[in-house]
């Protein structure tokens, strides 16, 4: 059997946070020299490649979304269970059955939510973009994926020794730094380009072929 080009890193997850049925889903795949992010609506896939040599940082932030959702599910499931119990005692078996089934369903979702562990958001940063990775919505999974990527990125870029960061960043003062924003703009680059055209007339113009 031919070797597969991509290996699955995560299952697909909805881009929208509160979407129960969402059209756009995102998943992560591991390639030979890059991470592939696939956004799909079921009939069309769009791809984003993050090459190991270009990945600057991965930021994981634990969120309370899982706790809030769990609490809400627990309260609703508990109330429905209570109503089912009361309805059963009041002589409405059909109503009790329906409420009981819905309560059990919600309880099952609650258990799945608890089993998934704490939730998080994950951002991947390169020199020109900051990409939200919705498929890394659980802390455990995000850290597992990061642990998987770390040696591959280190292989492509080399290791960053402790205390090396400030030393490495020194030459950047001359070249200017780029701070990508989530909407795709590159702050540092924009400033540098503006400076070159306005303040430094000797700078050669950019020629596009």
């Amino acid at each position, binding site marked *: 059997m031919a070797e*597969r*080009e*991509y290996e*699955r890193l995560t299952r697909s997850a909805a881009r929208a946070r509160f979407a129960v049925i969402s059209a756009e889903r995102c998943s992560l*795949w591991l390639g030979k*020299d890059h991470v*592939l992010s*696939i956004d*799909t609506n*079921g*009939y*069309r*896939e*769009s*791809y984003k*490649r993050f090459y190991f*040599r*270009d990945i*600057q*940082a*991965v*930021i*994981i*932030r*634990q969120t309370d979304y899982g706790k809030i959702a769990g609490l809400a599910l627990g309260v609703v499931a508990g109330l429905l269970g209570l109503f089912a119990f009361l309805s059963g005692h009041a002589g409405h078996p059909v109503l009790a059955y329906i409420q009981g089934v819905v309560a059990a369903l919600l309880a099952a979702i609650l258990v799945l939510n608890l089993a998934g562990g704490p939730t998080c*958001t994950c*951002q991947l*940063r*390169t*020199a020109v973009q900051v990409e939200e990775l919705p498929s890394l919505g659980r802390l455990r999974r995000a*850290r597992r994926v*990061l642990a998987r990527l*770390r040696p591959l*990125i*280190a292989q492509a*870029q*080399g*290791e*960053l020794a*402790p205390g090396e*960061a*400030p030393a*490495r*960043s*020194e*030459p*950047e*003062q*001359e*070249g*200017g*730094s*780029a*701070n990508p924003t989530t909407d795709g703009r590159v702050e*540092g*680059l924009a400033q540098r380009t503006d400076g070159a055209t306005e303040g430094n007339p000797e700078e*050669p113009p*950019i*020629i596009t*072929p």
Partner: protein
Amino acid sequence: MNTPSLLCTRCRTPLGEALFNQPELVPCPACAAPLQVAVFPALFRPLRAGRDGELLLIEGESSCFYHPQKKAVVPCQGCGRFLCALCDCELNDQHFCPACLETGRTKGKIKALEKERMLYDSMALSLAVYPLLIFYFTLVTAPATLYIALRYWNAPRSIVHRTKIRLLAAFILSSLQIAGWVVLFWALATRFRTHG
């Protein structure tokens, strides 16, 4: 500025180097959100400056196809034209001219530039399955499904591994639907002929 600033994803506060590459979650100094910030050497690498081509100094030296006054440094791996440093577009250690890069992107010849694909197999399967809810629609959708399944049988599917099972299922389902309609029309025609 020493370090390119990384911002807290919640409060947008710049994160200090003390937070970088910690094994566990550490609180953001401003909003106390638990963060793990994995930083790699590329963050501290200056952006590579663009190069403009070197002017030709010696007569008879190879020149760029697009800029005849500039020195060629590399041939395009798509068309073989000589390129100067300005026209050399490097992609995964391969060198292309802007025209080949554009052609490769639009025609999908360079896989690394491929941005999207249509999933005809999923389309065909949906077209075969969903109209079954209102069976009359299959009179139209079954031939359409069959057309899509046959027309795109060899078309590239998802970039990640995917079998032809969806196309096959769509083909079988639509064939059965068409067969069902043929049998129905044939039965109706025979009935009208015998009774009328």
